[in-house]
């Protein structure tokens, strides 16, 4: 029952760490408009040193930041049917995929890795908002299912870092089904009493919020992150009135009972380790 005791090192290829390309010279903070030197921003985990705004943190940087010594091993990206609907709007979906891959250097909007965190074996999955808005299609859903299955197989907790505009419309009903499939993924962990921690980052919306994102044993959010089911624009059009201040922000969700804690990115790794320590140091039956 105690996943710490049962931890077995998975027999997979050794950890490979990757260096990020140096950041461009200057970045502008979207909140306070301050110009921040790229390397300073990187050192500061992409939190604005002037106003504390949490800028988007790319998956590789996120994994580097979370795993012990930035050491981890990627799980294989699942091979799924590409463009199953043969979808085209004003552009081919395949073209969109291709340019997203070129832009992000990732195959899809979700990537998972395993490694150690505070000494605990753990699987961490991260959504890539730069990949078609972090939208969830078959590949993302399958990635989450396989990450959960890997965690179950190796008796490790799972941490998922969300960032998504919602469903991958271009995969139609097949993307909707990922809401059920990712929920099932979490159930597989629950059945084994393995911890699942949801880390909600800006933005986490639509079908992603209404499935695995909201099912954490513990739900952590980054400050000011937008976390929503329905889009503010849609709601505004429906009610024809202004929305309350801070609507759908992390702090609003905490006030409304949906989020356990809001954690500054600089403290995130430490807090997550603490949660793993707590959930792992369990009372063992009849000890």
């Amino acid at each position, binding site marked *: 029952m105690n996943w710490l005791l049962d931890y077995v090192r998975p027999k997979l290829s050794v950890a490979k760490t990757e260096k990020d390309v140096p950041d461009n010279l200057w970045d502008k903070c979207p909140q306070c408009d301050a110009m921040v030197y790229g390397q300073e921003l990187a050192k500061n985990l992409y939190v604005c040193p002037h106003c504390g705004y949490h800028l988007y943190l790319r998956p590789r940087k996120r994994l580097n930041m979370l795993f012990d010594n930035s050491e981890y091993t990627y799980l294989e990206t699942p091979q799924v049917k590409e463009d199953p609907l043969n979808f085209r*709007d004003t552009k081919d979906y395949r073209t969109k995929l291709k340019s997203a891959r070129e832009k992000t250097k990732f195959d899809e909007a979700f990537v998972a890795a395993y490694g150690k965190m505070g000494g605990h074996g753990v699987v961490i999955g991260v959504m890539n908002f730069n990949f078609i808005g972090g939208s969830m299609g078959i590949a993302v859903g399958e990635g989450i299912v396989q990450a959960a299955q890997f965690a179950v197989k190796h008796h490790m907790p799972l941490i998922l870092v969300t960032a998504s505009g919602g469903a991958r*419309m271009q995969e*139609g009903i097949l993307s*909707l089904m990922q809401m059920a499939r990712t929920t099932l993924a979490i*159930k597989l962990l629950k059945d084994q009493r393995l911890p699942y921690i949801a880390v909600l980052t800006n933005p986490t919306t639509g079908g992603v919020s209404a499935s695995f994102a909201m099912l954490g044993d513990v739900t952590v959010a980054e400050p000011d992150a937008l976390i929503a*089911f*329905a889009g503010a624009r849609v709601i505004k059009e429906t009610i024809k009135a202004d*929305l309350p201040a801070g609507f759908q922000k992390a702090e609003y969700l905490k006030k409304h009972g949906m989020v356990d804690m809001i954690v500054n990115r600089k403290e995130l790794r430490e807090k997550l380790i603490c949660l793993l320590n707590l959930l792992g140091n369990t009372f063992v039956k009849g000890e």
Partner: protein
Amino acid sequence: MADKTIYLDFEEPIYKLESKIQELKSCCDDKLAKDFNKEIANLERKTKRLLEETYTKLTPWQKVCVARHANRPHSIDYIHALIDNFMPMAGDKLFGDDEAIVGGMGFFKGQSVMIIGHEKGHDLESRIRHGFGMAKPEGYRKAKRLMELANRFGLPIISLVDTAGAFPGIEGEERGQAEAIASCIMEGFTLNVPYIAVVIGEGGSGGAIAIASANRILMLEHSIYSVISPEGCASILWRDGAAVKKAATALHLTAQDLYKFGVIDEIITEPLGGAHRFRDETIERTGEVIWKHLAELKKMTPEELAKDRENKFLTMTRFELK
């Protein structure tokens, strides 16, 4: 119930023929009637052929219109016709009773079941009461509570999906629309009883799948099930509200598409002309198909039922790759 016939635009030729028949039938007394009989029979044959032609090749957008047809039987109609001794149950035991989802226990062909469905309402007053079938968090939490109850007492669950989507509004967000939907999907996976979902009209996005993580997913022939409405898709991807027809086609939202994708288990054939024209027959057919699947599922043990659902969704969308 349907008071007057509402015609969809592509049904205009049918409408014209039917008006003509009506006219002939009414403008003559009994004596003259037989003179018109041949004419009427002829027109009726024509109408039938036209219905057949139209309804065997509905476009995706036409299916959307049919699926949303105001006279299409709603959850309450199915419950009324198929369930004996229905005991409607209310409330989530947390906040409120959201009538956008109706539910309760009753006998389905002698088997006690829990039946849960979106209800859109049939006139302005009832549409408002049922929130136009767009459920708030308390609606999904009621559904979840009823599923839990059914599970405890071994009642099979039948869900009827018919919603444009979950309610989009401040109260919904405030009270955890996302959490409510996610938990309702999750509840489906924890059940040890047969769970059958039927898309009877509109299967709109997260609001629909909340009550459809089932062992069997069935769809009526002209119902739709989609990640987003064609309107929403058109406005986002085409940036043009008028692109709904293109969007409807691109989204692959018809029962026939979903069956091909392996997302659903069976298509329930509607009488030619659609469920809105042949309400009783449609409901009866639907009942027969549900019963067939229920009989199959009842052969499984509680553990097998949970495993069946798990396997269904684990393998779903894992297509063979060339």
